């Protein structure tokens, strides 16, 4: 296809499937914790606004979770189908980590999700809350293991190579490899941030439409507190991860900065914008701020980082891509910080729910967390190239023997199917968000109670038929 090699096709396929997948678990992690907080607040305060919000967000959670499960299933098998040499070589490390993820997280989520979504009338409130907390715990455990595996591929430790394959020697070093704490916290906080931005945007949207005002205010308010706290925290974690990457993957940092060589006596400038050109080994049209690169990257005015020219051409990641993906992520991060500060200032002046300009900005920022996750992911993963396990196995040695024909066929199938299935799913999810929560006394709520009494309900769907009015779940629970 388009003259691409099997390796390129396999990389495109992996990049595409993982890009689709990563969005769903990020929202799953954030929403699961949010649901647990909502149910906890409801049980503690008896305020029905939290219960209404729980029902509303659990519908979106259900759609999102289903898409995360099926797209993740593809990932679990793709290592074997497309990257069989990687699996045979490093499976003795990535396999056990993935197995622990399944054992400690996937079953926990799946086992308690049924109760959390469908069990309102089947178990008591305490047990139901427990199920919600278990689902949330499962998502976090899941992130811990999968990030351990990914992180080991960036900064491998605790292993030897015997007879041409990886043998684990020290599992604590494998799991708690040098970049693990930074990557895990960066990912989990990113998930919380992305979810807060999404929830906040939907609250702001309903306020702009002057609907669902009580629930929308609660959504927006909770989300903005979260953004206010978490956005600066994320910037600090990102900075720490940057220092760690400089230590362990200096070529990645050089590529991210578009930094080619250290001239004698000069410090590292920060290149704000520019076009890193891999062929001519320069960054064209660079807009630079002197010293700032040294300060940010090394926390020292006179610090030096290695330039890309210090690495052999076949060991350099593609600077053009990671330079820009990184800048998109950082730019969005700055806007998130601005959103959080602005919300605090408006809250101070009691205008948080009234400033149209702010509400519009909050709506626009809705997808920014997910975009930042994707671009951050590209930065770190493309920055790891040409290695699949950094310094240990090259990506070109990891790919299966399939022909370019086989890979382009499956790639086309996956492209068409993913856009159809997940495109539809995301549109259903956005429709649910746009409709907003049921409010007590509203027509919808009356329809729903009618449905319980008279009509054939479909109580087991977590999502009452939105577009088939009057048939739905029984969100009674306990007052």
């Amino acid at each position, binding site marked *: 296809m388009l003259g691409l090699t099997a390796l390129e096709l396999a990389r495109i396929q992996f990049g595409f499937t993982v890009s689709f997948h990563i969005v769903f678990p990020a929202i799953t992690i954030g929403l699961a914790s949010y649901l647990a907080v909502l149910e906890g607040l409801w049980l503690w305060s008896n305020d029905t606004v939290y219960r209404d919000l729980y029902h509303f967000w659990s519908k979106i959670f259900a759609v999102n979770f289903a898409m995360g499960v099926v797209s993740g299933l593809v990932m679990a098998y793709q290592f074997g189908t497309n990257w069989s040499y990687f699996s045979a070589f490093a499976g003795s490390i990535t396999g056990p980590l993935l197995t622990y993820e399944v054992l*400690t997280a996937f079953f926990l989520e799946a086992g308690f999700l049924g109760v959390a979504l469908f069990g309102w009338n089947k178990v008591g409130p305490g047990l139901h809350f427990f199920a919600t907390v278990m689902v949330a715990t499962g998502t976090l455990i899941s992130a811990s293991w999968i990030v351990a595996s990914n992180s080991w591929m960036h900064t491998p430790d605790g292993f030897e190579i015997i007879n041409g394959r990886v043998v684990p020697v020290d599992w604590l070093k494998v799991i708690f490899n040098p970049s693990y704490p930074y990557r895990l916290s960066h990912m989990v906080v990113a998930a919380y941030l992305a979810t807060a931005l999404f929830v906040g945007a939907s609250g702001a949207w309903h306020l702009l439409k002057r609907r669902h005002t009580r629930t929308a205010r609660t959504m927006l308010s909770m989300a903005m507190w979260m953004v206010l706290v978490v956005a600066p925290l994320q910037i600090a974690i990102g900075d720490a991860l940057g220092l760690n990457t400089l230590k362990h993957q200096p070529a990645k940092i050089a590529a991210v900065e578009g930094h080619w060589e250290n001239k004698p006596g000069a410090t590292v400038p920060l290149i704000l914008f520019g076009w890193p050109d891999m062929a001519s080994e320069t960054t064209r049209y660079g807009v630079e701020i002197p010293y700032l690169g040294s300060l940010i990257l090394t926390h020292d005015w006179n610090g030096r980082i290695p330039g890309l020219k210090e690495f052999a051409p076949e060991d350099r990641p593609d600077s053009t891509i990671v330079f820009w993906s990184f800048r998109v992520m950082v730019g969005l991060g700055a806007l998130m910080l601005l959103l959080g500060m602005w919300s605090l200032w408006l809250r101070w002046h009691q205008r948080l729910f009234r400033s149209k300009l702010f509400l519009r900005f909050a709506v626009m920022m809705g997808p920014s967390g997910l975009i930042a996750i994707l671009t951050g992911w590209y930065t770190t993963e493309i920055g790891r190239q040409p290695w699949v396990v950094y310094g240990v196995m090259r990506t070109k040695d990891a790919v299966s023997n399939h022909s370019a024909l086989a890979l382009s066929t499956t790639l086309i199938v996956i492209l068409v199917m993913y856009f159809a299935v997940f495109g539809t799913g995301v549109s259903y999810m956005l429709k649910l968000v746009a409709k907003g929560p049921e409010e007590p006394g509203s027509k919808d709520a009356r329809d729903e109670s009618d449905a319980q009494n008279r009509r054939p309900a479909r109580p087991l769907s977590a999502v009452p038929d939105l577009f088939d009015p009057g048939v739905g779940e029984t969100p009674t629970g306990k007052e």
Partner: protein
Amino acid sequence: MGIDLPLIWAIIIGFGLMMYVIMDGFDLGIGILFPFVHDRHDRDTMVNSVAPVWDGNETWLVLGGAALLAVFPLAYSVILSALYLPIVLMLGGLIWRGVAFEFRFKADEAHKPFWDKAFALGSYVATLSQGFAIGAFINGFKVADGAYSGGGLDWLTPFSLFTGLGLVVAYALLGSTWLVMKTEGALQHRMRLLAQPVTMAMLAMIAIVSLWTPLAHPAVAARWFSLPNIVFFAPVPILVLLSTWAILRTLRRDSHSAPFLFALFLLFLGYSGLAISLWPNIIPPSISIWDAAAPPQSMGFTLVGALFIIPFILGYTAWSYYVFRGKVRTGEGYH
């Protein structure tokens, strides 16, 4: 030492895959039965009978894949490369039906029939692909220098096509008897009637595979038909006949859960027959579980978790089934 880690792991993975076949079997069976049920409320009841548990059922498939990668990485890389196309098909099928669980309730009126079709078609495609994979697995894989060396379509044989069909029948049997247990009234009656020819078809499938396999593979024939093995294994076909008879008998009587339990037992027998035929190879025809094993450090580390955690998983899975016990009713909600 003294602990045979590959052996223990082969048993655990075998158990995990059996759990998958049995549990996702009946919820895939719901999709397979969809074309035979047209009433929308009946279809909703069918889907609702598995909605709270299907996700956990499918997790056993992920466990099988992950554990295979962890403890038999060679087998994982060879088998998944060899079965590339069926696996992509299976994943595609599972995607369509997995999202259809949620989407069919959320789509606007005009699109609902589409997601019903996606649910049914996805279930068929996933099941057929799994059946193709089983057939190809029995036929064996070409391996050279630690990698798969056959072609991309080697899995496609008359035998694998037949096992694909066989698995559709098997899941239809599990699905229909599950619905006999979980539903009542007209739908239940319909399932009682439908399950009977399906049971007979199942028996025929088992008989044909049991003849075809030893005829095509002398090693399998030697395993079953030599002394003293024939004495040890004789109960398997006898139990197959007995449980088939029991399914048919309990279907005709007023029994609710017995047909499903006997169907589970029948599937278990078929599964053990397969295990007996292939033992101890993990990449048939000649690579054994010991040849393909990961380093002991990997197997030991993972085993600790598996032995401690699987009992908990079985515990809360059972609890979740207990919470949703009883009949699914269309009219008055699910109490």
